[in-house]
């Protein structure tokens, strides 16, 4: 009796491990296939630009809005803390370094996941359940090259640019609150920033945003491509894509920070 219980437990555990390994393997193969197709010609420039417009241009407003309020709240919190040490003059570097090294890449990635990543999963998922992906296959057109590679490249182009916009708008949001509301000297705000922010800090943000864009594009296209059946399948895939992308972005952020510091 005990032997049977142990055996059935081991069997169930083994089945789960096999499923998980298979899933990770499929994800890995999918990413590899997408990267190879994205790197090799022909490049679908028109298709890539359309995706850049959807992922990048259409996200500018929401990114700017988020960035402005993030910079403003950073300035408020930063001023409150720095004033305790009589270092209000360091508000500029505090806001800029927080945004450039950390909050800019992370929050931009999370916003893009919510706005464009989820839409991407739903779009590809609907194409899957509507047999449009099968239809591409029957025409002899590689769906990964046609659907996934342009979106991957568009994410890699758009997210770092959106992060740059986030950083700039956030810094000006901090300036608005710090200088105009709290009375920090404007010259000191930008002067200290110029003295403290180095190219390595900017590079750090760029590397992070590139890594995050790869994660979002990978997870969201994968979830859409292998969506379940029917409307419920697409709905589950979309939810799962947003959750998994967001968690992976935060996990990856920790490891990248520890490597890049």
């Amino acid at each position, binding site marked *: 009796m005990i032997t049977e219980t142990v055996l059935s437990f081991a069997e169930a555990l083994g089945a789960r491990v096999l499923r998980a390994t298979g899933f990770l393997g499929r994800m890995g193969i999918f990413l590899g296939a997408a990267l190879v197709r994205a790197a090799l010609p022909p490049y679908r420039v028109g298709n890539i630009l359309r995706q850049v417009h959807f992922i990048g241009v259409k996200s500018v407003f929401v990114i700017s809005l988020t960035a402005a309020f993030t910079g403003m709240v950073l300035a408020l919190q930063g001023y409150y803390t720095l004033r305790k040490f009589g270092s209000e003059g360091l508000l500029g570097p505090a806001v800029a370094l927080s945004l450039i090294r950390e909050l800019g890449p992370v929050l931009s990635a999370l916003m893009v996941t919510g706005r464009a990543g989820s839409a991407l999963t739903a779009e590809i998922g*609907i*194409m899957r359940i*509507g*047999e*449009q992906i*099968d*239809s591409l*296959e*029957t*025409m*002899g*057109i*590689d769906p990964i090259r*046609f659907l996934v590679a342009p979106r991957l490249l568009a994410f890699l182009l758009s997210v770092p640019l959106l992060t740059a916009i986030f950083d700039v708008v956030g810094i000006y949001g901090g300036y608005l609150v710090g200088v105009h509301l709290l009375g920090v000297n404007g010259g000191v705000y930008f002067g200290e920033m110029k003295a403290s922010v180095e190219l390595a800090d900017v590079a750090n943000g760029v590397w992070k945003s590139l890594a995050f864009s790869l994660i979002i594009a990978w997870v969201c296209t994968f979830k859409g491509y292998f969506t379940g059946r029917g409307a419920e399948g697409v709905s589950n895939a979309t939810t799962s894509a947003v959750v998994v992308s967001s968690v992976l972005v935060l996990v990856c952020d920790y490891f990248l920070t520890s490597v890049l510091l």
Partner: protein
Amino acid sequence: MMMNANGNAKCEPCALGPYTGGNPDPILRLVGVEKTLDGRKVIDGITLEIPRRRITAIIGLSGAGKSLLLKHMIGLMKPDRGQVLLDGADINRYSRRALYEVRRRFGMLFQTGALFDSLTVYENVAFPLREKSGMPEGEIREKVLRILRNVGLENALEKFPDELSGGMVRRAALARAVVTDPEIILFDEPTTGLDPIIRNSILHLICRTYHEHHFTMVMVSHDLPDIFQWCHHVVVVHNGKVVEVGTPDGIRNSVNPFVRQLVEGDITGPLQLM
């Protein structure tokens, strides 16, 4: 077109003569094909031949494995066992790239039409030519307009799929399936969900296309017994197995109780569905 006993339009007699079975030169052969999905054997050792330049109908109950058979024929699904031979070569042994080349010989009309939502009717039909043919845009336009005129969609060029009726979607999908001049066209329930008049017009269109080009056609259908007047060869599938193969008349007059029940649409018989 001729009229049958019921007064319905009937397909003109095939220029190649009726199919009598035993074609020595089938274009497609499935040999011992097996497929298991979610622990259920959905195709169970199917062996069948698709005669070249004939219309083959695959009939059976819903869930019998008919659509899966089509997907195996074009390499969208790989069998767990068995072979899918196109002109004698197993398509499952091809590399991915070679398989994409082989698929240029196919056209497929999906049950839902599977038109691309973001493209107009014209763009949908032009799509395979733009992507694969290397034809100049002027020639593409000429060809697409000619085919869309043939299917009666010349006034719907700029419409998007969600602006079309069910029949128009199928006609656009048919135009897209034939625009590349394939050798084999697969139809997955091309008339499901359409009213009788639209259904007949789609079948007429398929028949006319056949007479113009003599493509090999394979059609999964539930239109019984009407489908018998639109095909040369019938394959009856049940529970993932081929139950009977023959000419429309042969199947219509089959003594197999399951086939009789299917053809007559009887609720009593070997199949207890209620």
